[in-house]
């Protein structure tokens, strides 16, 4: 259906670019925005621009942050001998929610996937390797439990082991095909406890 307003049409277009949002939902969201008071809409627009302007990547762990280094990297309470490698920032949040892990992180920015044109150069692999020094005793590989995560785990463990650091991976307690982000906290905790040396 074509709306008479070009502005509305454009907003629908923008919403439909969001992941999981189809044409119909985009229409519903746009009509909802139309009904909101102007202040609320301004607030929302500011929030949208805010995430782009204020958030950047931590120069140490590559997690998204407003301050650099991020609160985790800067915290004196964290165990600096442990580095947990994850694919995306939301995986950091998933592990943090368990309240069990006290070490640092490294966000790779994805996993190896030739079909998507992603090789080691498209990931923050070099940055990870430069972080490995005498302070780091163990690297935990916590990739998503799918074939891309598995290949990345194998790849990284082969690079890391010659550096003399202990390398482990989280146990596959997470249902196959499931993403780390969706694993419940109990499963993740068990997976972290049951990590396997590589």
């Amino acid at each position, binding site marked *: 259906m074509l709306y008479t307003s070009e502005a509305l049409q454009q907003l629908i277009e923008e919403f439909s670019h969001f992941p999981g949002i189809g*044409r119909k939902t985009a229409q519903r969201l746009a009509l909802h925005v139309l009904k909101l008071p102007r202040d609320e809409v301004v607030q929302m627009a500011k929030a949208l621009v805010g995430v782009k302007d204020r958030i950047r990547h931590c120069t140490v762990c590559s997690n998204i942050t407003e301050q650099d280094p991020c609160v985790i990297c800067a915290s004196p309470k964290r165990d600096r001998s442990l580095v947990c490698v994850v694919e995306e920032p939301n995986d950091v949040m998933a592990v943090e929610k368990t309240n069990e892990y006290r070490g640092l992180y490294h966000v790779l920015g994805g996993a*190896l996937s*030739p079909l998507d044109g992603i*090789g*080691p150069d498209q990931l923050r692999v070099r940055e990870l390797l430069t972080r490995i020094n005498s302070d780091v005793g163990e690297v935990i590989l916590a990739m998503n439990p*799918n*074939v891309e995560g598995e*290949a990345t785990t194998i790849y990284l463990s082969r690079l890391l082991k010659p550096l003399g650091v202990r390398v482990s991976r989280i146990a596959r307690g997470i249902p196959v*095909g499931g993403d780390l982000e969706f694993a419940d906290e109990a499963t993740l905790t068990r997976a972290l406890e049951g990590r396997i040396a590589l």
Partner: protein
Amino acid sequence: MVISDIMLRNFRNHVESRITFGEGLNVLLGDNGQGKTNILEAVSYLSLTKSFYAASDSHAVRLGEGIFEVEGEMVADGGTPSTVRVAYQKDPPEKTFTINNVRPDSLSRVIGRFPVVILSPEHGSITSGAPAERRRFMDLTLSQVSSVYLDDLIEYRRILRQRNRLLADVRAGQAGAAAPLEPWTMNLAQVGGRIIQRRSRFAAEFSSYVGWAYSSLVQGDEVPLLKYLPCTPAGPGAEPEEIAGAMLQQIHERAAEERRRGTSLVGPHRDELQLSLNGTSVQRYASQGQHKTLLVSLKVAEFYYLRERRNEDPILLLDDLFSELDAQRSRRILAVVGTMGQAIITTTEETPFQGEVHWNTRHRRFTIEHGTVYPAA
């Protein structure tokens, strides 16, 4: 398992068809192109979440329509009913699958829950075609027995696609010299080893089912034999890790060839399931009738194999059951099928049933004409 009712709406040439099946033989009678096979395809959607031949979902939507719906009542052997519903919308493409109004976690978890055995002219190539057809037969049978196997299969296909893309990139000079092939190789061998082990065990067990089924269909001393020939020879008792090790070694031996050809040359995607009758290759030497009889034997065997492992009778979907068979063999096959479970049979000819089957509430007949179902007179 039986299917007691089905409804097809805007599915292929059916505008809206409803059928109440009997628990025994259900015959769908009609001339060519009337919509008989389409009904079997609809049952396949309920059981396997997709068409039994490689057709895309959008082709099943009736021409000029936007959505098809299929709904069926499945009754387990223990008596528990489930309402299964599939709807597919063309634009934007969306498939909804529910069991008792609940969406399953994933479609792959549905496979095996409502077991089916399908015989179709499209499957004729199991005995006569390329090895891929026989691998598909093995995979579908095993997937209905083990969701672990199905998960491995899905994973393996993904690894293979990733690895083949990388090899193709390497060949085209598009991947750096540092392109890490090794992780994908190890991944491939690990999952491949599990698949080969499962298939080896399957072939060893399944061969005797086929022998028994074949001898119940034909008198004589022809003995069929199945032999699994994996890319890496492994003893019947080999562990998945051993097989994976053998696979790795072969991949390393053929590394240069793989890079030159830009594709994976070692793994269960290259395996063969050899069929023979009295020691001669079926694929090369069997007559059309022998092919068909062997195909029916494979399906009868599949029925009993699934029944014993799932404790549930599969639903038999038999498309064009009697084509290529003489009257005597048709009667024999009908007698064997009659002792199994629920069967839905399509045919253009009623002759094989005449005098053999008494139509009642258990055994039913329907006529299909231009996508409309009538109780046969």
